């Protein structure tokens, strides 16, 4: 018998965790002598109060959907991919190399090419940790952390010494060709005669991200490979007994995960900056961890959690602009969400289970 009804498991526990995280964040805001209510209204106004705010919220959310899905896919194989940051950075390099070396006449061609480059580089960056985990048993968490730092150093070198245009002081690549400019959502809305989200970076990648959610759902719950990934994640000996090759599943799950993290680059590098800059990922790879945990490792949950974090990100920026609360408040909130939905999950779950058990006993 299940200890808790399903709705409580998928809805109630994350909601309570979120409320706890928010309550402590409110206490932190109080402690630094600001008003939580005012902070919240500033954030809502700034992130959701206008089409301009929405444009940024959805832009950030697009990043987080990709990195969240990346963490999620690996998590189903019980692999904790903490290397989304490095994989996304490498994805940016893939996009830049493709767009700068192949003259593509139209964005409709550049988008799939960019996606391929991003996914390929992201996946490649996940390959070595995956292989080491599968073959050598070295812990994937440690290796992916190391690969984050190695990626940062490598990109630093590549941008400063190799990709920087002659005469430029900026550690950044050349601008991508004009033809590869991805349509912004504001342009698309304008085509329908609606003025929406002018000067915001949200672009067609947002729809790619939604499509990725659907595809990941199909992959995990409606495909043979997904079944193998989940079986392996639940119990390695059982999967082995069922004839599932652990090396193959580990490597494939990590390749998909790295590819998804890398795909983030079509949004931030190709869609927004239109050139590769230093530190383009800006922590989105780590936020993916919070997004996947919050979203209960389900694409729909990841989508909603990414929206929430997009809101927090944009709202946090507004907060720094209009109040004396620094932007770093979001990092605290992010930490608390990870803590409560991830590490302290049992703290929320155990009393709930006891409560439902008591209710059921009384009913019987």
């Amino acid at each position, binding site marked *: 018998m299940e200890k808790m009804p399903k709705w409580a498991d998928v809805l109630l526990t994350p909601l309570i965790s979120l409320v706890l995280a928010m309550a402590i964040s409110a206490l932190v805001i109080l402690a*630094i002598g600001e008003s939580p209510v005012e902070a919240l209204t500033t954030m809502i106004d700034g992130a959701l109060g206008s089409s301009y705010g929405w444009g940024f919220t959805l832009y950030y959310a697009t990043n987080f959907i990709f990195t969240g899905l990346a963490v999620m896919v690996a998590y189903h194989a019980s692999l*904790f991919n903490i290397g989304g940051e490095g994989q996304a950075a490498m994805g940016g390099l893939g996009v830049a190399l493709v767009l700068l070396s192949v003259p593509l006449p139209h964005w409709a061609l550049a988008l799939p090419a960019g996606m391929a480059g991003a996914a390929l580089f992201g996946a490649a960056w996940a390959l070595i940790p995956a292989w080491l985990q599968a073959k050598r048993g070295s812990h994937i968490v440690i290796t992916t952390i190391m690969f984050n730092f190695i990626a940062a*150093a490598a990109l630093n070198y590549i941008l400063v010494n190799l990709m920087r245009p002659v005469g430029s002081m900026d550690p950044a690549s050349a601008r991508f060709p004009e033809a590869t400019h991805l349509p912004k959502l504001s342009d698309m809305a304008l085509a329908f005669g609606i003025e929406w989200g002018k000067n915001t970076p949200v672009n067609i990648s947002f729809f790619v991200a939604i499509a990725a959610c659907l595809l990941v759902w199909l992959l995990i719950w409606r495909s043979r490979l997904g079944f193998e990934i989940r079986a392996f994640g639940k119990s390695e000996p059982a999967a082995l007994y069922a004839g599932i090759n652990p090396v193959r599943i580990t490597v494939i799950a990590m390749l998909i995960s790295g590819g998804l993290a890398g795909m983030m680059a079509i949004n931030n590098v190709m869609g927004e900056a239109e050139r590769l800059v230093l530190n383009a990922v800006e922590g989105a790879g780590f936020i993916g961890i919070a997004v996947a945990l919050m979203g209960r490792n389900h694409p729909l949950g990841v989508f909603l959690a990414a929206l929430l974090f997009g809101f927090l990100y944009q709202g946090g920026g507004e907060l720094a602009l209009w109040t004396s609360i620094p932007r770093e408040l979001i990092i605290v909130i992010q930490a608390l969400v*990870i803590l409560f939905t*991830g590490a302290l999950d*049992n703290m929320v779950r155990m009393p709930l289970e006891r409560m439902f058990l008591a209710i059921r006993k009384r009913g019987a």
Partner: protein
Amino acid sequence: MDLNTVLQILDSAVRLMTPLLLACLAGLYSERAGVFDIGLEGKMLMAAFSAATVAALTGNVWLGLCAGLLGALMLSAIHGIASITFRGNQLISGVAINFLASGLTVLLGQKIFGLGGRTPNLTPGAELEAQVTPFRTWLTDVAGADLATWLTATPRLSGITLPFAESLRPVPVLGPLYAEVVSGHTILVYVAFLMVPLTWWILYRTRFGLRLRAVGENPASVDTAGVSVTRLRFAAVAIAGLLCGLAGAYLATGLSAGFVKEMTAGRGFIALAALIFAKWRPWGALGATFLFGLLEAIANRYPNLDLGIVTVPSMFMNALPYILTVIILAGFVGRAIPPRAGGEPYVKER
């Protein structure tokens, strides 16, 4: 490259390895007891911030040191409660702690000093004076002017000249080595080095150490023997907190003069790398952190190291600890096998 340059690099390596060594030993206690700790970075950062803040407000580095220990210990408590009491995922808890420290230090720093997340510079000067004055005035009222001046006059750790450092200097090679590299560091450097034999002794020659190692390999056996797994693991996590506290305090009040945003800059992760490099052993930790400290010192001195045939960019030097760790993990240079029960919460059979 003359002797003087070598000595300077070695001296700098000793300074740079100290926070790594302390954090590495912190990880060693925790992971040997079966609790993974990727929150070393966060604990160090928190300790650096609390130490620098209290040192700036009181003008007393020892009070700062206590605050640093307390700050790190607080985060250790969170890690312990999440990963031991509630049997949560230790890695996720560590990630949360890193972010918590990274956000809170800036938030609180901005609130207290309004300097954009850094603390005032701890070298005596107008900036520091303005912060210390209220405390000194209060202390003068309570304890008298002499004591107040004396108590608020050491905002930073200062170097200790070891005995005979100057008189032995004329001795070729060894004299300068002693005077430049061994002598003249702050107390925490010597504490860090003494921690190595002490840790070895605790781990391999005491009952506590035996149990600590056992609880990281096979907690059920410790439980069967009637020793509390929970208490042992909490003790290990607390020791890790204290050592991270020393590391952070040294970073902010010894190595540099004050706290700046994200000042640990990945040192917690390099310490983690060193721990793997050391195969979870105390003497190995000394060697690994010295190597990584040396790499950092060389990278600082020669941003582009010219080896004649190739020029090594500083980015490569900075990434080298991580690359070496991956190679070690790959098992090409001896295998690094972590404590067997690491990362798994202990559940008593029911």
